């Protein structure tokens, strides 16, 4: 017992040293993580925001069904997403010819699928509330559907930014999907979460802890960003 605690203490010291010295291996992992998750967030917003907006202002048959599906998809287990993407991208799968399995592209695809429903469902709620407030005025002005959607997206920009950050937070912290489709290959598809999982099981606690620290800092940073966006918006009465 004492040995383990001693080991953890040493590892923590080493971890902090790794972070502070800017260890190149560590930085490579961190940058790949950020690249994959930020790209996935961008794609998820590109798909999720228009879908959220259309459902928010739409009055169509089966809308309730769509809402239920959207909300259910928010809770997709990352390993299931990973497995599905794996089945499609594996050599024998329908998209196997692309040769994407075990590349950062595969990880981006998996994370996009994971968080696009989150962006769509959360933005739907935000935009629907705003539309409730604006719709009579907009009908009086005879705006087209496209004009309405563009105005809603712009006026909800601060809330939508926090929606995007929520998606990013989920993507950067998940391990199940990227480990299946990425494979945690050193210098190629090793991201923070997969490295933590692997290094811990291999007993290299220092690297795992260092990455854990950085992940924590990123999580805190995302939350701080959400807070400051909210406060800026509130100060200008733009929420």
């Amino acid at each position, binding site marked *: 017992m004492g040995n383990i605690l001693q080991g953890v203490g040493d590892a923590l010291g080493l971890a902090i040293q790794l972070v502070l010295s800017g260890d190149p291996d560590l930085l490579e992992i961190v940058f790949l993580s950020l690249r994959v998750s930020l790209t996935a967030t961008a794609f998820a917003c590109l798909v999720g925001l228009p879908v959220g907006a259309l459902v928010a202002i739409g009055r169509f048959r089966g809308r309730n069904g769509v809402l239920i599906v959207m909300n259910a998809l928010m809770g997709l287990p990352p390993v299931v997403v990973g497995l599905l993407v794996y089945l499609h991208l594996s050599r024998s799968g329908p998209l196997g010819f692309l040769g994407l399995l075990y590349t950062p592209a595969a990880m981006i695809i998996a994370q996009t699928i994971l968080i696009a429903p989150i962006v769509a469902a959360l933005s739907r709620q935000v935009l629907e509330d705003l539309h409730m407030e604006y719709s009579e005025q907009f*009908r*009086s002005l005879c705006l087209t*559907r496209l*004009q309405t959607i563009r*105005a809603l997206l712009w*006026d909800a920009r601060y809330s939508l930014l926090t929606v995007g950050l929520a998606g990013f937070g989920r993507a950067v912290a998940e391990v199940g999907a990227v480990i299946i489709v990425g494979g945690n290959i050193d210098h190629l598809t090793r991201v923070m979460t997969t490295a933590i999982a692997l290094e811990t099981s291999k007993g290299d606690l220092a690297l795992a802890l260092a990455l854990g620290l950085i992940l924590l800092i990123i999580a805190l940073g995302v939350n701080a960003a959400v807070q400051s966006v909210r406060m800026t918006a509130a100060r200008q*009465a*733009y929420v």
Partner: protein
Amino acid sequence: MSDVGAMTIASAAGAASRPALLPLSVRDLVLRFGNTIVLDGLNLDLGATGCTMIMGFNGSGKTLFLKLLHGLMQPTAGCVSWGGLQPAEVTARQALVFQKPVLLRRSVAANLDFVLRSRGKDRARTGALLDHVGLARKADQPARLLSGGEAQRLALARALATDPEVLLLDEPTASLDPASVLAIEQIVSEARARGTRIIFVTHDMGQARRMADDIVFLHNGRVAEHSAATDFFSEPRSETARHYLNGRIVV
């Protein structure tokens, strides 16, 4: 949706080429929510020009009547005809200033800019419009931080930005200070002088005396009285209008 664009182009070419919106004729208009009867066979005819004031007790259906005229709601029964056209066909040729203005989460100028742009109008007018309603100094301020009176003036400027042929106003001066009331009345009078038909809901007796050509008094879901303003104030024909003017509650 494309017909809205066509309409905007037509308005640039001149309103004369289009069928006139007036006279307005309302026949047997009924509006019901479940068991609540708001309008109960309302009939009304309005001529081509001037300023008509609509008055009536709280809850008498003035706001909903304006929304029906503007094509924002469907009546339970009866019809509204703007020179033979349905309200929903002519929404774009009218503007409604709501009792509670809804302003976009943008700057004051951006609120006007948005309307001018979406209606295909000249965006250079933003400055002149703000000047016109006395908000030039507030152009860059967030619109939702405006005071009640300033917000109403911005809502009025936004309505005028669409060059409406009919301007519908729902108590635009409630809770404003006397100077702001006169400022708004001045702006509305100028629009009227340019030929815009004004339909104005108010509880303000002085305002009705200053502005109205004729008064429509709503009660029990019908027009209890429709007469020239001078007659209405000197000698109201209906009992309820007399009570209203004397500040008595009628049940």
